[in-house]
């Protein structure tokens, strides 16, 4: 357990972020990323000093608006198009691991 830094980065948080991001991190990775995230965030914290709250945020470089099209059916992909790229495919469906908690 490392000391908690100003931005809250410590090994527990890195393990938690790994869970959220679905990354099964090794102990060595947890150690590295704790140091590196701390360094990177430390180097960019200056941005919190610049923009005041009255500056509107920009999420996108061009104004986005919803795009509509006529509701006309067009041919889509067929099974045989994406079967070869799927890791597991069975009975016309993607085969996935169990998604509920109970054991099989």
């Amino acid at each position: 357990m490392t000391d908690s830094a100003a931005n809250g980065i410590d090994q527990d948080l890195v393990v938690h972020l790994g869970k959220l991001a679905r990354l099964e991190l090794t102990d060595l990775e947890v150690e590295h990323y704790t140091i590196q995230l701390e360094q990177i965030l430390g180097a960019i914290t200056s941005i919190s000093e610049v923009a005041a709250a009255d500056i509107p945020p920009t999420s996108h470089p061009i104004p986005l608006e919803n795009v509509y099209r006529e509701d006309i059916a067009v041919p889509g992909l067929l099974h045989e198009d994406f079967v070869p790229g799927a890791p597991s495919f069975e009975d016309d469906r993607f085969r996935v691991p169990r998604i509920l908690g109970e054991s099989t």
Partner: protein
Amino acid sequence: MNDLIRQSAATLAGAIARKEVSSEEVTRAHLERISQVDERVHAFLFVDPEASIARAREVDQQLAKGALSSPLAGVPIALKDLLATKGVPTTCGSRILEGWKPPYNATIVNKLHAAGVVSLGKTNMDEFAMGSSTEHSGYGPTHNPWDLERIPGGSGGGSAAAIASFESPLAIGTDTGGSIRQPAAVTGTVGVKPTYGGVSRYGIVALASSLDQAGPCARDVMDTALLHSVIAGHDPHDSTSINAPVPDFVAAALNADVRGMKIGVIKELQGEGFQSGVLQRFNQSLEILTELGAEIVEVSCPHFEYALGAYYLILPSEASSNLARFDGMRFGIRVDDGDDRSVEEVMSATREKGFGAEVKRRIMLGTYALSSGYYDAYYGQAQRIRTLITRDFVAAFSQVDVLVSPTSPTTAFKIGEKLDDPLAMYLNDIATIPVNLAGNCAMSLPIGLAPEDGLPVGLQIIAPAMADSLLYQVGSALESALIDRWGGLLISEAPSL
């Protein structure tokens, strides 16, 4: 025609159109070059010579029938490996997509096909376009043709190296923070990041959707203009694609004239951290532009110093969301599958094994920046900086027509030199990132070799959104003045390999 691989795309297209040479001959010459040098350069991840030759023959037949009119018909091209190509492996430089063949084509790929441009293959890149050196590829680094021990830039190092080593006259890159321009700068080639929305993103594997933009790579300005005109235009499949007529980039490149133009030098992008030889060549180019009749004005963009910080919060945030789709369920590899494993376990094992160190680092950073309690302090704040940077550009463009800066603070560094220092690596993009945050357009073109190391230096021209034509006008003016001095393109000075 002699030495087919050293000709420009424009020259090749002209000769093919006049039946002086066939697309098949041109394609074979480039495939031959790839087989000779790519073992050392490693620009390509995938080449299918038979398919390329078959396609070139088809184009030759279409041309013979007069069924094809395009300014680049028959010319070969290299495609960055994050463009979806139907039935052709597309890895994004990542092991997580090893062996995956997309079921559809990116719009750019369809446009190139319709224009009779012949694909030579897919080029190496930093994994999911995260990097400035192509060292973060899951398939090993690409080498800079100027010095094989050095990086070719990134993330599009494969595309830039393919052009610089005469393996292809043209390439497609994508630019999220400089991934077309910085590789162009360090390989002595030309690269253009079009205005955001100017070229369709459909079928381009997303890194950061509000920043990503595909564009042309070539050895001279005219070739980038020709390629840009082929790939540009509105696409109903991309909701962020601009629905406006495509300007005549080729006419702009022919109008190589900067007389009376005001060119702004960005005060914040020339001092500390920039290599002396880079600044020396940059200042010489300013003198040339003055001699050509432009007025050089210094402008200040005070918020650019915060661009890197804002970028390294916005990019990882968007990337961590975009890369959530790589979960081992519908495409790519799957690790530790089994009846006793939960979906979370399989996803986590797959992503842990499939992603490389830099990708994981940025996913973690983005997950952090978007997480509850930190969102406002990081992501929210970064978006406000983005507004301030856009305002800096608006203020600058009220005083000048275009802006210029060195493209990259240094020339190509040694492979391995910055691999374990992410912060040092991120600084490569300091001059290119503001353009992506604001969504306007920019070009990098070669302006000479740095005296201290003999490696190429690039100059960046930045124009307002939708004013891409200005890049070609100013770029070709500067390029032709430099060609007059050098007696040819800078790339002809590169080692023969």
